């Protein structure tokens, strides 16, 4: 209760604060807290929540009893014939794909965002340049999906109307089916994600860079530091805390990502991620048990970040 003592003395009848709070608390309990608990419960039950998940086991097949939905969620995409097939199938499973998304998209958005923030810091038309990079944030993932599907379009033998294949064939190469060729397609989807979210990273990083006192930069320049040295030895270390915040935000966003994959490939051709697989199990296959098990696995990945968020908040409050 760091700030409680700082509150001004106000006439306050008993229970008045709860009148202000209750509507919000009730709605959040009904739509977030209760469903979360319920989701965990459902993940141990059969497809429509009428019996334990153990009843869905089939004879002669592996069974994890009440954890059966988790067995399905974790192993069904894997080809466990040998170590090698397991390894290979893991990298085209939704988990493997999510790891690719995490590595490439987080590096891409934060990296390009950081470089761009530093580059435009020195030009006159900074605001315009930033607005162009930020613009995709205003568009829906669905709209972005259409935009990029057209970029990746695979035409006929006579004509390529997708600009990427037009460039490729113009250079004398064969056109590529960007969205159905494994494992290339997942990376082409990640490009869309990078296109959309770089502006976000850039804006946060840019305001951090601008908060570095000009004198520090000036002093090091007088000492003969090059632009690159200023970037790598002064700017980046100083804004490191912001970089970490941006990275964690992006990790959370990538883990939850659904729309891009759903619109562009529907999760086909080995592009499924955790969120699209959850949707397929739950909605297309009406397997509530399996769907909720996947959701629980998803939140297990996110819980560390929830804890981090609360810790950061507690620290901020203590500093006020």
């Amino acid at each position, binding site marked *: 209760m760091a700030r*409680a003592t700082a509150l001004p003395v106000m006439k306050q009848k008993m229970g008045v604060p709860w009148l*202000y709070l209750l509507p919000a608390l009730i709605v959040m309990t009904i739509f977030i807290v209760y469903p979360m608990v319920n989701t965990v419960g459902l993940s141990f039950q059969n497809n429509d929540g009428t019996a334990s998940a153990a009843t869905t086991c089939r004879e002669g097949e592996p069974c994890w009893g009440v954890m059966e939905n988790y067995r399905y969620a974790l192993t069904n995409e894997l080809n466990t014939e040998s170590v090698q097939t397991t390894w290979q199938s893991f990298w085209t499973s939704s988990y493997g794909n999510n790891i690719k998304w995490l590595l490439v998209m987080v590096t891409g958005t934060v990296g390009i965002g950081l470089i761009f923030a530093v580059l435009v810091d020195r030009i006159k038309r900074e605001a315009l340049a930033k607005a162009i990079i930020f613009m995709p944030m*205003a568009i829906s993932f669905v709209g972005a999906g259409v935009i990029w599907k057209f970029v990746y379009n695979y035409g006929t033998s006579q004509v390529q109307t997708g600009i990427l294949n037009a460039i490729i064939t113009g250079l004398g190469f064969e056109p590529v089916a960007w969205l159905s060729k494994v494992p290339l397609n997942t990376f082409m989807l990640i490009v869309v994600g990078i296109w959309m979210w770089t502006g976000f990273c850039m804006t946060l990083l840019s305001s951090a860079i601008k908060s570095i006192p000009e004198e520090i930069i000036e002093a090091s320049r007088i000492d003969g530091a090059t632009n690159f040295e200023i970037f790598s030895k002064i700017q980046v270390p100083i804004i490191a805390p912001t970089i970490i915040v941006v990275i964690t935000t992006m990790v959370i966003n990538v883990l939850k990502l659904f729309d891009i994959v759903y619109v562009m490939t529907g999760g086909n051709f080995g592009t499924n991620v955790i969120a699209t697989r959850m949707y397929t199990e739950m909605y297309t296959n009406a397997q509530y048990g399996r769907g909720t098990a996947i959701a629980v696995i998803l939140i297990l990945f996110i819980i560390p970040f929830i804890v981090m968020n609360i810790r950061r908040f507690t620290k901020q409050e203590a500093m006020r």
Partner: protein
Amino acid sequence: MTTATLSKSLSKPRKNREPSNLGTGIGIVIILIIWLIPTIGLLVTSFRPLSLINTTGWWTALDVNNGPETAQHPDPNAGYVEKLSTRFTIDNYVDALTGYRGTGTYLEACASGIKPLGMNCNLTDLVNPRGMGRAFINSLFVTVPSTILPILVAMFAAYAFSWMDFKGRYAIFAILVGLQVVPIQMTLVPVLRMFAGMGINGTFPAVWLFHTGFGLPYAIYMLRNSMSTLPKDLFESAYLDGADHWQVFTKIVMPLITPAIASLAIFQFLWVWNDLLVSLVFLGGSKPVMTYQISNMVTSLGAGWHLLTAAAFLSMLLPMIVFFALQKYFVRGMMAGAVKG
């Protein structure tokens, strides 16, 4: 201009600006071109007739002589502008808005006197359930209450969290900070079953309620942040004048946090407008919104680029206007709420 607002909010004027070198300039321009080309491609394509979309690249749109025989201007000696004008059309937008799915165009079909299937050839076609016109209205119906409701509820809670004393004030708020990050997927199944029990799946109130619930943690968090930075003296002098919480809340706090409410409203509005998952699950085809309609078109009629590009651009229209007109608030709202849902 609009971009000036972004610079004001993001950058302080800098002294001793290092003169930018050529390499930096070229690098920036290349990145910007890469960023813009996909959207320009969509925009140009949405104004081209189907026959040209499928036979020529959009980057050749200004070449008036390419494409198949049927797309050529009847008079080969016509002037450039004359020829160019026949190579652009708004038919795609008309077809997308009305939901026309025939082989020609809606206007041609209606002009021929034979009404296309399910069409009346008058203004009522704009609200044809298959079209983007109706989807636009549905999107508005979903978005406006889903923006107002959570903000309304959140204002009260945020006030309590910033200026009232009660037990568990800090603990409840810490939980709320954590709830912001909970993925939507974690709640879909139980809420779907709950709505099925209430019989409201596929109706607008279902999405309103869901968006209100999910919008609250972030809305409260953001409003509380701006409310708690108001000077304490304000509250103390109001107290000395005999004001109670309700008067302070409505007469002092609300007017002062209008900018924060604006940022929050824009963020929530766009979040709901651009959402696919929630509409997909709780509304589906019964009240198709724009994102739903487009994602349906992508999967069901793969190559209808003329409709897809026009429909996609229609769905981007409102967010774009908001972005360019209210950039300062927009960026602020986006920055604070990026991890929501």
